[in-house]
């Protein structure tokens, strides 16, 4: 059996949703060994076992939280050198991307980012990904020692396995590991409602909203629908909303039950991040906007008129959020 390392992350003290997805994928490919480098690692070993890890390497040094990427990359690289896994899987998160980049550069491992699937191929592995705004799918064959694959969140449905408790192996942070960039503070932006990735309804805005202040309309609508607010790259680049809100190729993939695109033209770089939604509703002034080619219901009109009317209509029907 192939040995598959899964770089496993926590959100808070729980196994993160994307790590559950990646562990699920990994057990289709071989024997799964999870690596958890986090001060709270010990609390997550059982959950990693439930998702298929037979062995869990844990490191609980507080340096993994205090410093960005470098200590974790050094510890991961040490483990890879000791165990020579056939494949290393990561969820494509802010931290994992940096840790993967640094560990791969340290050891000379190839990396495929943005994978949506991984399959066994010719004694090794191949990663599927989507390019050019999701218009084409490519399959990339991996070679060389311990190739690394970063999987986009929501590519796989997480399913627990029936395995028993995993073997837990504690690993020490290499003393020589450079610490690098230090986290001085964590600022949590005030937020209500579900996250963009978890939300069953996503209400997104683009240039057609004309002014950042008009995002308040989206906030209000999202609150009524128990949804989250997303954005196109154009308005993120314009500084209206932070990068964390960006849906698309360079940004997040969302798969809600309903995606409401407001004043978004629907460039491929955006639609690749949302075309997996069950239902899509679009409001745009331009009848020829590409978003109308992929939506289930399109309204050709000014989002700044339709949105307030929609909010009023929902309220009149007794929807109160």
């Amino acid at each position, binding site marked *: 059996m192939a040995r598959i390392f899964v770089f496993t992350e926590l959100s808070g003290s729980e196994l993160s949703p994307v790590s559950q997805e990646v562990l699920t994928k990994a057990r289709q490919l071989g024997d799964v060994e999870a690596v958890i480098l986090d001060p709270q690692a010990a609390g997550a070993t059982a959950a990693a076992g439930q998702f298929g890890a037979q062995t869990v390497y844990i490191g609980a040094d507080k340096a993994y939280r205090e410093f960005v990427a470098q200590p974790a990359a050094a510890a991961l690289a040490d483990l890879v050198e000791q165990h020579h896994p056939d494949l290393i899987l990561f969820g494509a998160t802010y931290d994992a991307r940096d840790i993967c980049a640094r560990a791969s550069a340290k050891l*000379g491992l190839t990396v495929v980012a943005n994978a949506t699937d991984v399959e066994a191929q010719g004694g090794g592995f191949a990663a599927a990904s989507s390019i050019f705004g999701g218009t084409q799918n490519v399959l990339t064959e991996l070679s060389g020692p311990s190739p690394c694959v970063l999987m986009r969140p929501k590519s796989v449905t997480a399913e627990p396995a029936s395995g028993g408790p995993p073997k837990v192996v504690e690993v020490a942070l290499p003393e020589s590991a450079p610490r690098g*960039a230090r986290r001085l503070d964590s600022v949590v932006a005030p937020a209500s409602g579900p996250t963009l990735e978890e939300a069953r309804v996503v209400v997104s805005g683009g240039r057609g909203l004309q002014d950042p202040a008009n995002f308040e309309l989206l906030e209000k609508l999202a609150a*009524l629908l128990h949804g989250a607010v997303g954005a196109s790259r154009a308005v993120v680049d314009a500084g209206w909303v932070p990068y964390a809100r960006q849906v698309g190729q360079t940004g997040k993939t969302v798969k809600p039950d309903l995606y409401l695109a407001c004043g978004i033209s629907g460039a491929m770089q955006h639609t690749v991040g949302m075309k997996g939604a069950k239902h899509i509703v679009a409001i745009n002034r331009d009848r020829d906007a590409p978003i109308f080619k992929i939506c289930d219901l399109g309204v050709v009109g000014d989002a700044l008129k339709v949105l307030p009317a929609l909010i009023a209509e929902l309220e009149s029907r007794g929807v109160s959020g």
Partner: protein
Amino acid sequence: MKIAVLVKQIPDPSGVGKLDPTTHLLVRDQGELVLDPGDSYGIEAALEIAGAGENQVVAISMGPEGAVDVIRKAMAMGAAEGVLISDERLRGSDALATARVLAAAVKKAEPDLLIACTESTDGYTGIVPAAIAELLGWPSLTFAKHLEVTGSKVQIHRQTPEGHDVVEADLPAVVTVTGGINEPRYPTLKGIVASRSRPLEQPSLEDLGIDPATVGAAGSAQKIVKVEPAAQREGGEVIEDDGSGAQRIADYLAELKVI
């Protein structure tokens, strides 16, 4: 202080990219080639830190000969010099091979700070900057939505799922910036004229001490083996808003049991 910024020439992202059906390499001769829009934020960030003093900004790129255009654009915005690494043997480089080449060029330029965008708009792996940092033994401060340099330290606000972390490191360091971190300036006519006479270096792989076996397709342990068109979603009903659009959407939401 010297600040290096990475720039990349990419096919116009508003068009549809294409891979060569046999080589599986990017077809570069169709459509307009432009400066990656993400890079303009990196250039602006470098110029803002450099200010008006004796600080200098050097724009570094790896790509075909034609990529000199994006270096000239960075110069027209204000970069003082440029470095282009262009070599047939670099074709087919993966992220790690690319990082090897760029790290060698950065090392030679000896900047105090390297700035790049978070991910390129075409390849969007987001791996190269942190890999360069590892190869140079520098800290990496990524996903910056705010950036400042004070003395020998760099501090950023690093995007997180919930907000941001304040992250600090000693220089030299690598920083990646997100879109919207600043408002990139437009090149002025004076800048465009001046850019034509600014120094451009074109080191060979040998000048950079790079073993050709570690770059290009030869140095990349991955190969595209299949390309196929993705399934496209079908469109549905589209109506003109005659004042009843909101009602129609509300009806649809009720149909879906969202409300």
